[in-house]
Structure formats: C-alpha cells, structure tokens
C-alpha cells in the first residue's frame, strides 16, 4: 500500500482524480469510477437542462465518491470566481479545481487571470486546486497565495501527449510544499506512471480514460500505473548512462576461441 494523498488536511487513499468529461454514457462513468478506485471526481458547472435524462450527481454519489467542481470554460478571473461560488452553492463544497483558460486552441491557462482568481478564492475560504502551466515560478506563486495544491499540465488538455517537459515537472515537485497533481495531457498508463516517478503526488485524468476504447479497462490500468510509479519512485531508479554497463561479470569467462 502506498501512503495516502493529503490535500488541505484531507486524506485520499487514491492518488487518481478522475475527470467525468468525455464519457459517452453515465453507466460507463460509474464503472470507471469503480475501476479507478478514485475518491474525487471533477464536474463542470453549466446551464441546467430541465429535459436532461439521468443525473450525473446521482451516479457519482451512488459510488460513494465526492465531487470536485471545476471552472472549465472560464477565460477571466471574474467568471472563474463566480463559477466557483455557484459550484459551492450547488454542490456544498468549498473545493474547486480552478481553471482560467487563455487560449481556445490550446486551452492553456492564463497565468495572470489564474493567479488573480486563486488569490480571491483563497480569501473567500475556498480550497483551491489550480490547473496551471508547467511553470515552476507560477506554481510557486500559486502556492504563495494559499492554494492547497498545484496541478501543472503535462501537455494540453485532451492532447494525450503525455509529459512534454519532465524537467519542469521535476522543478515544481522539488520546490513545492503542497501536493503536486499532474493534470492534463495523460494519454495512457505509462504517462501516469512517469508523473509519479517524477515525484508528483497524484494524477488527474479525464480524456485518457473517458475516451479510451475501453474506459473501464484504462481506468484500471492507470490506477495500477500510479501505484507502480509511486513504488518505483520509492525504490530509486538507476542513473541514466551514456554507455552500457554489463550486469554479468567479466571475470571467469571461459576461453571459447578456436
């Protein structure tokens, strides 16, 4: 067993946070929640559709997991703060995955708006988990204003390109005094394992699971990849070398030449 992830004093046995976006069916989401063993799943806040069939919240709560509302789709600090407040009112949680997007094509965060929103939400008593660039300086600034974790991207949302800049993720991990959750870019299990090997405290996955050919099987795979990554980090990997280093002894070789 790996130690629990602790965010804002709350222990989570699972280091996998699951995004609910992209699942074709609610039943599939429910089964993926079970397979992932996550305890925290993200939701977005959108206009209600009185004709909508089935309740996302019922599925989530029937699985015994908690919701982490996000501010996806917000491009300004003002909109993100209002969305977080609506989420707090609707879902009775003061936890928020803070997203403030700066560009529609890449969905990369807007650093200035993100920091402004984070500061305001912390002042409002929120537990703020910001989705951020893989920028160590911005991560430090977010921690300084009181964020409960930092969630750097591996690569753009939904891209499945994995961890584009592992050196920056390592820098963020080295300096952080709050949990570091890799958020965005995971494409498959090995990306999640690498995040943990780099020292991240958790991984948030949505598309990698929800848009996999078999979401439930991928949820299972990523759960185990995170476990493997944590164990490998603890085990201490060997240093990379330019040249080979034989593991079989040179001494005692038989003379085989004719």
């Amino acid at each position, binding site marked *: 067993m790996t130690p629990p992830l602790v965010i804002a004093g709350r222990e989570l046995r699972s280091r996998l946070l699951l995004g609910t976006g992209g699942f074709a069916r609610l039943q599939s989401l429910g089964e993926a929640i079970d397979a992932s063993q996550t305890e925290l799943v993200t939701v977005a806040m959108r*206009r209600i559709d009185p004709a909508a069939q089935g309740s996302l919240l019922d599925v989530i709560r029937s699985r015994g997991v908690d919701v982490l509302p996000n501010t996806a789709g917000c491009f300004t600090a003002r909109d993100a703060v209002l969305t977080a407040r609506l989420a707090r009112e609707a879902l009775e949680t003061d936890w928020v995955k803070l997203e403030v997007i700066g560009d529609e094509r890449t969905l990369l965060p807007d650093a200035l708006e993100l920091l402004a929103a984070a500061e305001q939400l912390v002042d409002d008593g929120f537990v703020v988990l910001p989705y951020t660039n893989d920028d160590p300086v911005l991560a430090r600034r977010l921690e300084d204003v009181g964020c409960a974790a930092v969630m750097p991207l591996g690569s753009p949302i939904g891209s499945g390109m994995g961890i584009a800049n592992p050196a920056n993720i390592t820098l963020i991990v080295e300096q952080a005094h709050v949990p570091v959750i890799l958020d965005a870019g995971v494409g498959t299990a090995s990306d999640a394992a690498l995040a943990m090997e780099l020292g991240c405290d958790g991984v*948030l996955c949505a598309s990698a699971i929800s848009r996999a050919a078999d979401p439930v099987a991928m949820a299972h795979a990523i759960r185990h990849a995170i476990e493997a990554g944590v164990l490998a980090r603890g085990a201490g990997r060997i240093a990379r070398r330019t040249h080979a280093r034989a593991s079989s002894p040179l001494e005692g070789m038989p003379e085989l030449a004719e």
Partner: protein
Amino acid sequence: MIYVNGTPTDAPAGATIHDVLVGLRIDPETAGIAVAIDAEVARRGVWPTHTVPDGARVEIVTATQGG
C-alpha cells in the same frame, strides 16, 4: 421580461426566484443547482423571497460532465 439562461422569458411582476424555477418546471428542492441573478449568486435560502427584477439575467446551473 427576464432572461433565463439566455432565453427571454415572461415573468409576472414580483416573481421570486422560487416562482421562476417552478415556472420552468424545476423543483426548487432539487439538489445540485445554483442560481445567479445579474452575475451575483443568490443563496438557496433567499429563493422564496428574492424577487427577480425586470430585465434581470437569471442563470440556473448544475453539475455536468467535465474534466
């Protein structure tokens, strides 16, 4: 006339947030919904008494799938 989730909607003078929800066939007791009036959150406790002014922009939101 008020604007509910972007749609022009008739509402009688003095209609409360509760009245607007009922008019849309949304049970105000439904868990997981929140309301903003002109970009300010209206807490659930004020829905029965808070009147929606003419021209107000009413946003009614709930949780949906998202990453």
